[in-house]
């Protein structure tokens, strides 16, 4: 009876890293009516790590701001490299928080038979889209619309999220139906393919097209961290530096998201192997349960956040 418990633990543990998209409490309008005083869901170990990480992030944020400001006076190669390095670290830490990107990527990788290499492709793709979207939103609002910036960001966010979560719900629904009706990918079959991913047929797992298909909606909500950095550099009239910073942040976030994806794949494989052992039939069964669970999480996550945007 330990084995179903293990699968349950897997699903519960993975659901823990599923974060939500929170609005900016300062500039949002009439959001999040609250009842209780504390609703924090964080464990004891996190309390310790939190006390370590929050100051690190604040330090990174402050150094990035002051280095960017220093660059305005004298633009040196060393200074540019330092900004890039700080932005990279900022991205790595920034993506470590709860966020919808990792939720979507994780449940997608649970629902599909992906390779470690593919988790890196998907991770960096999501991060690139996430940062590019932030850059685009800021540039459009800053140069073209010139209204109240924070309100503009909130509004743009609202519409992008509406479309994003509708697409995610749809992808989740299609996957859920397919996984419920069809068979899971057999483990043995997985080893037969040695060619490049994009050259494989649809049955062989994830194609480049399907990776792009999930990375776009997973990343297109503009990263609020990148928005802040870009706006900061723009306010100092440093467009090139803002692009440098946003690229580095994207690279950093991609590293974290990829690592999360790789862990999801490893845990999925390990848990299935631990539960099924050498039984091919049991392997198929459990794989199917995990994949249906992943698709269900993707579908429900999309639906809940879509409804929240209405």
């Amino acid at each position, binding site marked *: 009876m330990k084995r179903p418990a293990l699968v349950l633990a897997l699903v519960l543990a993975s659901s823990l890293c599923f974060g939500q998209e929170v609005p900016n409490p300062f500039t949002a309008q009439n959001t999040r009516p609250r009842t209780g005083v504390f609703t*924090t869901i964080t464990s004891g170990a996190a309390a310790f790590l939190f006390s370590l990480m929050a100051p690190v992030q604040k330090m990174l944020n402050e150094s990035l701001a002051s280095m960017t400001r220093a660059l305005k006076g004298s633009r040196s190669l060393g200074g540019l490299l330092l900004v890039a390095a700080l932005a990279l670290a900022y991205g790595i830490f920034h993506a470590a928080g709860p966020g919808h990107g990792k939720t979507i990527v994780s449940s997608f990788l649970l629902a599909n038979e992906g390779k470690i290499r593919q988790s890196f492709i998907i991770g960096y793709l999501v991060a690139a889209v996430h940062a590019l979207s932030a850059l685009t939103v800021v540039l459009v609002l800053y140069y073209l619309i010139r209204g109240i910036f924070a309100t503009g960001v909130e509004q743009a966010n609202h519409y992008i999220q509406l479309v994003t979560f509708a697409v995610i719900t749809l992808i989740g629904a299609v996957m859920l139906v397919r996984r419920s009706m069809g068979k899971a990918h057999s483990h043995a079959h997985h080893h037969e393919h040695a060619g490049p991913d994009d050259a494989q047929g649809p049955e062989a797992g994830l194609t480049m097209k399907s990776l792009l298909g999930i990375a776009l909606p997973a990343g297109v909500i503009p990263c609020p961290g990148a928005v802040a950095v870009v706006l900061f550099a723009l306010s100092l009239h440093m467009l090139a530096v803002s692009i440098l910073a946003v690229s580095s942040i994207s690279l950093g976030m991609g590293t974290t998201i990829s690592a999360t994806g790789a862990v999801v794949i490893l845990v999925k494989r390990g848990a299935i192997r631990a539960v099924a052992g050498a039984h091919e039939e049991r392997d198929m069964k459990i794989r199917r349960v995990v994949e249906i669970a992943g698709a269900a999480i993707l579908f429900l996550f999309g639906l809940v956040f879509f409804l929240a945007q209405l």
Partner: protein
Amino acid sequence: VRARGAALVVVFGTVAVVAALAHPHVFINNKMTVLFDGGKLKGMTFRWAFDDMFSEMILTDFKPNVDGNFSAKQIATIKGGAFDNLENYHYFLAFFIGKKPLRKIRIEQFTPSVVEGSKLIYSFFVPLDLPVTADEQTVRVTVYDDTYFVAFDLMHADDVVVKGDEGVSVGLSIEKTKVKPLWPGQYMPDNLVIRFKESS
């Protein structure tokens, strides 16, 4: 084999815990003043100093005068556009008067300002109006955003000053919150404990 699977779950659990950590976009240094006057604990002033990037974002929308101050009209605009919504978040404040939580937090004298040319400051007063008596009373306050959008610096003893406490005996300490955790080990932020009574 099972041990290996269990180990993987533990690894993943740890990653999940790390992932559940702060994802803050705004960093605030919070300073407090406890104000006594006319035999009462009148209330507390909070002074929030924002990080440069968030300051810039707000100041892009709400420009101060050249001297760094805002006019009454500008203050009203900032309050409406970038402060009032915090009511939905209890203004990130949890007060306990004795054992009773303060359900409704009132805000007075909201004043934004800019220091060092670019740093945004919010300060405001929360009235409490608690008569000082011969019996010791306790007020606990925690400053904390449970959505993790905002990270407040950890509380230190020198973040708080007491004013107007003639004839009042006041004791300040920082301790773990007394709010009951929902499960063992749940993260609970520190809180400021104010104990006060008439001085003999």
